[in-house]
């Protein structure tokens, strides 16, 4: 029962056939199993339009010229988990029916930023990032201004949409996720 040292006893032609057959079958199995599993794993994460409009609250709740933290109502879906979590955001009423809705995560590594009304600035508590009331970087390591939400006003109620990045001139730069 000692191992039989018979490497190379398979004729090269047969060996090539075996290699080809195994490769073909292996590739077919990998494809049949791999494609659905990859989709199963990755597609829900990469889905574009999962988050529809979030109800932030009546416009009247946000005084002109001021910035305040708001909690958007969770979305209710037909199946589990049924409710999305509540979403916090900063709402700036810029007057004339214009708003800026800021994402609460610092653009550096995601620490929650705090709005400091007396100072008129957003502070990140992790690495000293400071943003002005329009979300521009004043100091510290953040690479870009605060991210923002699309918004719309319908029947006096403010809604938040997708998240986007802005550049240093506060112009639209990219969607927060591709």
């Amino acid at each position, binding site marked *: 029962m000692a191992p039989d040292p*018979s490497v190379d006893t398979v004729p090269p032609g047969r060996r090539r056939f075996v290699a080809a057959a195994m490769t073909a079958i292996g590739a077919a199995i990998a494809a049949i199993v791999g494609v659905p599993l990859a989709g199963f794993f990755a597609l829900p994460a990469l889905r574009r339009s999962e988050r529809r409009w979030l109800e932030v609250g009546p416009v009247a709740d946000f005084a002109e010229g001021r910035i305040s933290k708001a909690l958007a109502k969770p979305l209710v879906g037909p199946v589990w988990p049924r409710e999305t979590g509540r979403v916090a955001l900063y709402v700036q009423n810029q007057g004339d029916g214009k708003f800026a809705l800021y994402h609460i995560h610092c653009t550096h590594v995601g620490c929650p930023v705090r709005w400091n009304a007396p100072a008129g600035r957003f502070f990140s508590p992790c690495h000293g990032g400071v943003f002005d009331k329009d979300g521009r970087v004043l100091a510290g390591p953040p690479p870009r201004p605060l991210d923002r939400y699309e918004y719309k006003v319908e029947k006096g109620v403010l809604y938040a949409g997708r998240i986007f990045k802005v550049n240093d001139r506060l112009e639209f730069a990219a969607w927060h996720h591709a």
Partner: protein
Amino acid sequence: MAPRLTAVLGWLQERLGTREQLTRFLFRRLPVGTTWWHTLGSAALFLILLQTLTGFFLAFYYVPSPEHAWDSLTYIQQEIPFGRFVRGLHYWGASLTIVVVFLHLLRVFVMGAYKYPRELSWVVGVVLFLVVMLFGFTGYLLPWDQKAYWATVVGTHIAGTAPFVGDYLWRILQGGVEVGTRTLGRFYAAHVLILPAVLYGLILVHVSMVVYQGIGPTPRGPLARLRRQDYARLYEESKGRGETFLEHLVRDAVVAFVLLLALAWMAATWSIPMEEVADPTDTQYVPRPEWYFYFLFELLWQFPGKWTVVATFWIPLAGVLALLLLPFYDRTSGRSPLTRPVASAGAALALAAVGVLTYQGATAPAPPREGGAVTQETKALPPALAKGAAVYEAQGCSACHVLKGTGTAAGPDLTRVGARRADAWLRRFIKDPSAVQSGASMPPYGELPDEELQALAGYLAALK
């Protein structure tokens, strides 16, 4: 070979002796007459790997708590791309794995491969078979639908009938005195952590033994009947004329591929039975186990009352021991099944018994309806018969009798009872069965009003 590949292989060979390792594993010679039947072991391994893989992915979204288990599975099926397909692979794959593992065991039995020198391979293999059955038992609860919940209630009750330790076993399985949050947690941890660890540990041992000892040969020619002193020599001679494992691997790959195609087809086209979320307070539900436990469930008919433990414990125990110890009590030298008639006949008998019981389970009549439910068919009867049919339903007769394929087959099938028994006889029998037929197990219905009794007997007598 490309010179670069040769260089890499040389580098590896110098450090790890890869050439010898490969020889020992991939280029080892197999005995002559290694057949397609010899692919069943690798087919089982392939299916187990596939179950592991699909299970890993399902675990990304599944939540093992009574509040969310059913919901999260619905979410997988309805919201996650390929969710139905991936769950289908895992669901149908479970049954297919049990079938293939069992066929592998059968192949080894028929070829006498459990004999010297492979006694331990057989023992480990039988344990692997039991572990695979436990995967079925634990996985079954996870969807937390009615079927899952009630089948588990029955399963833990059956475990609870074990002598001496039954009560402890019952509670430790459940994690308490009922099937609930802790049961689901336990079954999930067992299904995805404990059992896989045991399974792969044993597979490592099982496969290492096969690689070391070589595959069990087809019992033909000089290898059909063997004594120990000749074995090593004859096996080596046979290997000298056989093919290499690498060549056999093509067969393994083809079988794996065909199994996968079949499974993918099932997953893509068959729908998975999924019932309502589990309700422990529902008293109308009729539990049924998964098909691979039918034989146990049907066996219970044969051993009522105090004998229940024979069906739930002693027969299964005897069966497991008979399998486990087979190589130690079957001392015949024949490897071909015809040269060891006792073992073969015993196995055939056991197999037939399991087969018949499984068939009975698969073809059992539809469960009795809720008491008092009156069907369309009944409503169409003439008034006198309709009244009798209503009594039949109201008195829950279908709890023990089958009528036109519905009910429980504890007593005689009544579909054509009128052809056997007259109205008057039926009336007397229903009123007091044991007075008419000594030893009748039906309880007396003496309290039934005469009017209802007449209607019932008339209805039954008309069934021809």
